[in-house]
């Protein structure tokens, strides 16, 4: 008997169930098909301004910085300001996301580059699909538009997010992905990011910048 078959037959013997029990199969199928949400915390709820405020305070409580700009056209200036204020070099790497590449970068002195990171980029920008108010969590989807390496290898990660993309709960954000990709289908990677990288492995002291970015700057576009 193969390892697989033996494990399944062991499980079924222990549980006292049969493989051909149609009622059990229906329970599991329905549970997956319906994908009902359970208890959802109230704290992320509210209209867009309320969700924005919750998102901002939650993200800041985990050491991210948050800027709100009126329009997408203001994003390049905000990134330039952030890098300048932090005394960081005026370089920036991004993927092929049109929401980023089409911005008016000419007004800045930033040296732009495109594509995945190989580990030698100091600064990168990604566009998030959603922000989750309940914990200030960003949801970023992998692909050529926003390569996952940009989320982890650069020292400074900047993430752009539309105000309308700020939702109350994880369920809302994941349901949007399900809608975009189809039921049961997923992008290769969904990164849910809550603050910059950290470790408390040395005497429980919280230190930022363990293996991922030391800084996480979130720019929310109001319109």
């Amino acid at each position, binding site marked *: 008997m193969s390892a697989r078959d033996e494990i399944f037959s062991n499980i079924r013997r222990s549980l006292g169930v049969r493989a051909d029990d149609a009622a059990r199969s229906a329970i599991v199928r329905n549970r997956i098909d319906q994908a009902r949400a359970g208890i959802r915390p109230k704290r992320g709820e509210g209209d867009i301004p309320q969700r924005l405020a919750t998102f901002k305070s939650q993200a800041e409580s985990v050491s991210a910085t948050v800027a709100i700009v009126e329009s997408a056209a203001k994003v390049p200036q905000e990134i330039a300001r952030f890098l300048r204020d932090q005394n960081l070099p005026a370089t920036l790497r991004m993927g092929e996301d049109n929401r980023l590449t089409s911005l008016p970068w000419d007004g800045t002195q930033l040296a732009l580059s495109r594509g995945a990171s190989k580990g030698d980029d100091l600064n990168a920008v990604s566009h998030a699909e959603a922000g989750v108010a309940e914990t200030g969590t960003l949801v970023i989807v992998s692909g050529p538009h926003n390569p996952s390496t940009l989320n982890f290898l650069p020292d400074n990660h900047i993430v752009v997010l539309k105000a309308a993309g700020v939702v109350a709960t994880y369920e809302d954000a994941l349901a949007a992905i399900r809608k975009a990709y189809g039921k049961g289908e997923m992008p290769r990677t969904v990164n849910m990011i809550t603050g910059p990288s950290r470790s408390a*492995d040395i005497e429980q002291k919280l230190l930022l910048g363990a293996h991922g970015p030391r800084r996480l700057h979130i720019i929310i576009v109001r319109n």
Partner: protein
Amino acid sequence: MSVQSTSPQFKQNAHHALHDMQLQKALGNVRQNFIERRAVAAANLPEFEALRDQACDLRDHVLAHIDLYLEAYEKKVLAAGGHVHFARTSEEACQIIVDLAKARGAKSVTKGKSMVSEEIGLNAALERNGMAAIETDLGEYIIQLRGEAPSHIIAPAVHLNQEDVEAEFRRVHTHLPADRNLEEPETLLAEARAILRSKFLASDIGVTGANFLVAETGTSIIVTNEGNGDLTQLLPKVHVVVASIEKLIPTLEDASAMLRVLARSATGQDMSVYTTLSTGPRRPDDVDGPEEYHVVLVDNGRSNMLGTQFQDMLRCIRCGACMNHCPVYHAVGGHAYGWVYPGPMGAVLTPSLIGVDKAGHLPNASTFCGRCESVCPVHIPLPKLMRHWREREFERHLAPASVRYGLGIWAYFAKRPRLYRLTSSLAMRLLALAGKSKGHFRWLPLAGGWTDYRDMPAPQGSTFQAQWKKQGGDR
């Protein structure tokens, strides 16, 4: 070959631990930080208790249908272009991963933090086959350098102090200037970050565990704070997920539900920094990510726990709250437990996985205060399960003769209440008389286990039962 156990020597291990001043200093951090942080996180979420109940029900539902969820999950992983391997034992699991790595000419395997990889002894297996296994979680990296096992399931180096880490880095990182400053935690972290960054980029295979496996989508989920798990799975050509079979959950909604209790129970964070959902290998238009995605599902004794009184233990989501709140863990640390899983969850799980004959001491190392159960996000009745192990140990005549005789004598009296009351009140009076002058005993016959370590106070007045009766207490 899974990890060697020193669980049979729990008493000696605990004795050493209690006299290890460095360890005792480090354990102070557990007592202080974890408990307070969890309490704050729980208090800040009004729905937290209801979420725990929900998480418990959800895990019960999964375990009752685990065969079907495994099948659904497997189907989705395959459809996403991934591979699924089943392993009955530690040896099979290691062999699968070693074969995968060998076939691809791998020299270097980076690892995200994974308790099941500790359980199956993966690092040793890779190294026996000429490959370097590199732990990338900061705590795991530190203890790997020291040749130690983790002493905590989420804070593997919690038994160490900053000076220990500094000494280890100076011993191993000899290519760096000897006079460099390593006196701050920040400089230690920076050094580890720089060294591990080069390992990430040079790795052939990345192995991670999984906090959850989602049947709906064939997705594996890992939760980290450092980002090491992500660099582990993102940069090499091959990503191998190793997970035990009970990690399944039905849907993405269930993932959301479980995530809300996991970090709060573990570190007291509302959410860990990186929660990553991975489904299959690199897609055609991807510019990064692994070319191959494998899942190794490990049974290693779990299917035999289903349908028994120990099935509840399989609800566990490995948050570590039980050990964070355990007075025994606080006193002796994780290594004393002698195998992979310490604390109350280890005291229940270890006898299931390696046998009560080897790990029978562990369920006895409990004060039965019940704090573990009171903080468990999935309401595992840990004290009850430890009691079940004690009963089995007794039934199988594994308890020492002195314990068996002692219990036999006690049972004789306990079954005869009048005789019990008579004897105990006589004994009390006798003891009260003998200890009258000092008020305590430094030594008593047959009570060396007590008086070797502390004085026994002399009884005052009548027995508890007599006083209870006098106050009109109910039986």
